Structures are given as C-alpha cells and as structure tokens.
C-alpha cells in the first residue's frame, strides 16, 4: 500500500503544497529541537496536577513538546496519560498548574475554542451523519464558505482514500475505514496539534502496522504536531520522535525511542519497554570508560562500557536485552573464568517464527533470556532443551541501572 503522501501530492491543493515544499525523504530526518535550548516549546505543561477526589491522576508534571514533533505518551492503564491529553483538549481542567499552547495559556479556553483536534479511541463518529458530513462537521462550525468546504472535504477524502465511501454512514464501514474517517475529520480543520488517543487500538495487527507507518509519513508531510497516547510500546516506538514514559501520574523518562530502549533511565523503564534481563551485581571497579561488575554468586564477571554513579562495592542492576546475548554450546567455552559470559541450562524454547527465545537458567534464582534470529532453515547442531549452553555478550551490550 502506498502512503497517503502520493494522494495528497496529486491533489495540488493545500496538502499538496505542504508536500511540494518538502521532499518525501527518509522517515527519520535530523530533527531534535528538544536539544536546542533556544527553541521555544510549542506545548508546555508547567507543574500540572489533576486530582479526581482522592486520586491523583497527574502529579506535578512538567513537559515540553516542540513544533512538528510526533510525541508519544506511553504508560500502562491509569498512569495519567489520557488525563494529560484530555486536559490539553480541554475536557478536564487541571487542579493546578498551567498548560501553554504556542505561548497562549489555555486556562479558561473551552474545548470548542482550542486549536487542537482529537482523534478519539472509539473514533466517536457521528452515527447519524455520512462520512462526508462527519468530515465537514468541524469546518461548518468555522462557517467556512460552501465552495471551500466542499474542496477541503474532497481533499480529506482523497488523502484518506475514502472517496468511494463519502455517502456512507459510519456503521456501513469497516474498522479500518472508520479509523480513517476519524483521522480525516480531526485533520480537516488543520489543527495546531492533532491528539491521537489510542488511535490504532481497535485495528488488527497487520492493519495497525501499516497505519503506523502511514501516520508517520502523514505527520512529516503535513508538518503538524502530533501527540499520541498509547499503552503499546511498539506503536510508540514506531511513530514517535520522542516518548514520554509515564507511571502513576509522573513522567519517568522522556527520550527518543532508541535512547529509551538502549539506555533506559531506570529499572522501571527497562522492564516496561521490551524484554530485558536484570542481573544483580556489585561494582568492582569504575573508570571514565566503563565499569567492572561482579555477580559472584552466579560466577559472572561483567565488563561494561556503561558508567555509574554508584560507588565501588555498591549493589546495582546490570540490564541486558535478550537479543544482545549470544547463545552457543557450552563446550565451545575455553575456560571457566569468563568475562561477559555465563554457563546455563536451556529450560524452554519459544519459537516465534522470525526469532526464537531461549529461556535458560544459571541457577535456581537467575534466569536469562536470549533471542536468536532464525536466519537459516536448517541448523547443523541446534540448541535443544536441557542443553548446557554458554551465554555471552559484548562490552557495550548492557547498561548499569542503580538499584
């Protein structure tokens, strides 16, 4: 399926002109306004707190989001991510704190006057209106002249490939088509910020993945600021420039996806994002270029490029992703004194098609997982259940997390 970009390009109108100025280049361009101290944030939450009775949904939260950014709020249910978005849309009022949009304080601005549009989790399409009327709804509120309105609606229909369904009612559409209508309706008014509340949750996996990529392309082409709320880490990683991981009403870490994944700021994030092995160890040695850890109990001697603020002798966590561990037959190990390696026994193997997950046990208390890509169809000496194996990894494979 080709991106929406092609369609809007042919439109030759507003959407087209947006594209004409920019090339539809690689998805991740060099874009990091958050590193530039002179850059003015487009959306800013300043010490925002929201309480519902005794429950604190958002707890003294501050956050800066920049223009043209695709920003994801990621967290489990009840972490406050949806409340945060609803406060930006105006459906909830902060108990305290300020929300600024493009320099304007949003306090006291009702939802219908805010220059943001939201794509609802349930899509919230008006069941008594056709696809066309749904898309035109927001434009009608602005009293847009009939000619322009018609043009814009047909642009949006083209952009979302819904021309054939213009006259249909929402209940006559499939889930994916409804999702497109919701998107078209939210985009029609060219909002300063598009809010997406779990936008792809109701789609099946394949369609979701396709739509994720289309969303990123669309966001880059339109040059709009997108704020997405999701509990799906894969979705957040795929679409976002930066991810804010939330827990219990607070932001735990804000960083680009790769950084969140490769250099998680805490044990919580390491555990929350993807799969990770956590090994308790003691700091033996530390220097500018890295550290040496010892998990003597398990006979593991770890040398890592990761630095730590913990003192020598302190207990820390060594975190390493399963795909960064190599697994081989134990007899290939030369000696018993190993660096960044450990002997283990295969306890279970999960075959997922593209990769296999090996669950191994070093001893009763320590289990280590390794994922291996299934590159060839036949392996000479496959690793099997109960095999003695060696797990090894490189110097820069893992990170140290303070306990």
């Amino acid at each position, binding site marked *: 399926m080709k991106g929406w970009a092609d369609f809007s390009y042919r439109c030759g109108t507003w959407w087209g002109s947006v594209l004409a100025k920019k090339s539809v280049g690689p998805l991740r361009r060099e874009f990091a306004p958050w590193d530039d101290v002179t850059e003015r944030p487009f959306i800013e939450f300043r010490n925002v707190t929201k309480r519902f009775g005794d429950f604190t949904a958002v707890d003294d939260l501050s956050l800066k989001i920049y223009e043209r950014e695709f920003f994801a709020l990621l967290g489990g249910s009840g972490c406050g991510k949806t409340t945060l978005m609803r406060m930006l849309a105006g459906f909830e009022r902060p108990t305290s704190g300020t929300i600024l949009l493009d320099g304007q304080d949003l306090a006291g601005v009702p939802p219908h006057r805010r220059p943001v549009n939201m794509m609802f989790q349930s899509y919230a399409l*008006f069941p*008594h209106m056709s696809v066309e009327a749904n898309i035109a709804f927001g434009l009608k*509120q602005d009293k847009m002249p009939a000619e322009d309105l018609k043009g814009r609606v047909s642009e949006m229909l083209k952009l979302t490939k819904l021309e054939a369904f213009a006259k249909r009612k929402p209940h006559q559409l499939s889930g994916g088509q409804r999702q497109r209508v919701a998107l078209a309706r939210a985009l029609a008014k060219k909002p300063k910020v598009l809010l997406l509340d779990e936008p792809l949750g109701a789609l099946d996996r394949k369609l979701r993945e396709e739509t994720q990529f289309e969303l990123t392309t669309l966001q880059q082409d339109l040059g709009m600021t997108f704020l997405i709320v999701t509990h799906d880490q894969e979705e957040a990683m795929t679409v976002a420039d930066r991810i804010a991981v939330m827990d219990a009403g607070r932001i735990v870490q804000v960083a680009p996806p790769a950084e969140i994944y490769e250099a998680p700021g805490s044990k919580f994030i390491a555990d929350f994002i993807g799969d990770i092995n956590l090994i308790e160890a003691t700091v033996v040695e530390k220097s500018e270029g890295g550290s040496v850890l010892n998990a003597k109990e398990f006979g593991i001697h770890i040398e890592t490029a990761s630095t730590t603020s913990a003192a020598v002798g302190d207990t820390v966590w060594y975190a390493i992703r399963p795909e960064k561990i190599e697994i081989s037959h134990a007899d290939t190990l030369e000696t018993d004194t190993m660096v960044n390696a450990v002997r283990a026994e295969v306890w279970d193997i999960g075959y997922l098609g593209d990769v296999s997950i090996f669950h191994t046990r070093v001893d009763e208390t320590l289990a280590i997982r390794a994922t291996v890509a299934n590159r060839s169809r036949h392996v000479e000496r496959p690793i099997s259940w109960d095999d003695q194996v060696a797990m090894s990894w490189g110097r820069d494979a893992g990170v140290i997390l303070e306990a």
Partner: protein
Amino acid sequence: MSTQHTPRRSLGSWLLIAAPFLWLLIFFLAPFFMVFKISLSEIAIAIPPYLPTFDLDGGWAALVDDLKSLSIENYLWLTEDDLYWKSYLSSVQIALISTLLTLLIGYPLAYGMARSPKAWRPTLLMLVILPFWTSFLIRVYAWVGILKNEGLLNQLLLWLGVIDEPLVIMNTNAAVFIGIVYSYLPFLVLPLYATLEKLDESLLEAAQDLGCPPWKTFWTITVPLSIPGVVAGCFLVFIPAVGEFVIPDLLGGSNTLMIGKTLWVEFFSNRDWPVSSAVAVILLLILVIPIVLFQNHQQKLSERA
C-alpha cells in the same frame, strides 16, 4: 462445510410461540369481531339491545338471513351526525397538544436524569415510577382538589397576590391537558431516558473538540440521536390519550369533546350498542394507523443497526 438445515422445533417451543398468539386471539381478535358484528347490527329494544343475534337453532338458512340483515348503516350515521367526526378530531387535537406539552416537559427531565451522576440515576428513575404506586383514578381525582376555583392552586396564587380572582381551570380543556401531561409523563420519560443514557458521551466531546459550542452540540448531536426515544415516548402518550375517558370526564367541562366520552354516552346513556360499537371500531382504526407507522419506524431503525 455448509449446515443448511432448519432447526427442528420441539412441541414445547411451538407451544411457547403459540401462547402469545393464542392470548391475542382470545382476548383481542375474538372480542374485536364481536364488536365489529354488533356495529353492523340494528338497535332493538331487547336483551341484548341489537338485532340480529345469531341463533344456530334456525339452521343454515336462518344464519344466512341474519348475515344478510347486517348493514353499514351505523357507519353512515357516524358521517351524518357531526358530533362524531368532531369528537374524533377534537380527541386527536387534544392528544397531539398534550403529547407536545409532555415532550416539552419530559425531554429536559429525561436529559437531566441521563446527565446526572451515575449514583443518583436509580433514585431519579424510582421517583419517575413512584406515582404508579397510587391508583390512576385517585391521582386524577386529586387534580380536582388542586385545580377547582377554591382549590389549592388558586388559594396559593391568591395568597401570594399573583392574582385577584380565582383562575378558571377546572372543567376546561386546560385541565384536561394538565391531567394528560401529568398522567402520561412517565411513559415519555422512560424510553427517552433509556435512549439518552445510551448516548456515547465521546460524541459530544468530539463535537465540541471540532469547534461546536455546547448548546449547538445539543441540537446537532443529542437531539437527532434521541429521536428514536422521542418517537417511542410520544406514541406511548398519544395513543392512549386519544381514547382517554377518565381524564376528560373528571377534569374536562361539558364542551370538552373527546371520543372516549362520546362512546360512553352512546353506550350507557343512549344504550345504542350498534352505534357505539361503530364508534369503537373507527377509534381502533385511528389508533392502529399510528401504531403501524411506529412499527415501521422501529423496523427501519433495527435494519439500520
């Protein structure tokens, strides 16, 4: 693999399906045909007061003679005396106005209930149903005490100094409107509340998010989506209101013309069973047409869903 066989029903399930039809046959269709037959008969000073009465003793020929003597004369009579069509018209008019008034009062009530905190809703619903615990007749009769010239309402208004002379409400159409609105309000509120309560709140948020102020959201989203509830509620008020007898009899005046009253007079005062039967059959037609319309409407809705 295709399984294209109709499930075989057991005797029990047939009985279950037959039960409501049997009920309707015995208690609706059979009496209807009896009334219909009487409406085609002729008034007589006899017991029962009409002719012919079917008598199987006379054999087949007598039965055929009896059937031949049936005529639509009574129906023609209904068109000759303007009392009847005026009664029908006035009944429909009073029922329409009452339904409209009930809607005007019931909609905000149902809307308020549906938008109230979840914890309150069962209580509010209970309050709507509460009047049913008292007899309908007693409740209507109580309005006499409120509306009459020296009644509670006039005394209150006189005491407040709003009026100098008692308002004449009792024995007017206004009293009938009040009575109908009061009595049938729950029938409108309940289906409407059910519809409004189901309304997805995110639709209202979506409308506002797209720049629609709250009052306009009400008219463009809430009202159109509550139409099924409005239609159901209005029919539940309109249909019984057309044939209403107790309320116009107790609260209405001598010039309140309603078909229920006309029917009563025809049947009991004039003892003209054939004509009153004809009146009843026509009334049934007048009521069946809106019911059929309503059914069609529901059908369309369920097809859409």
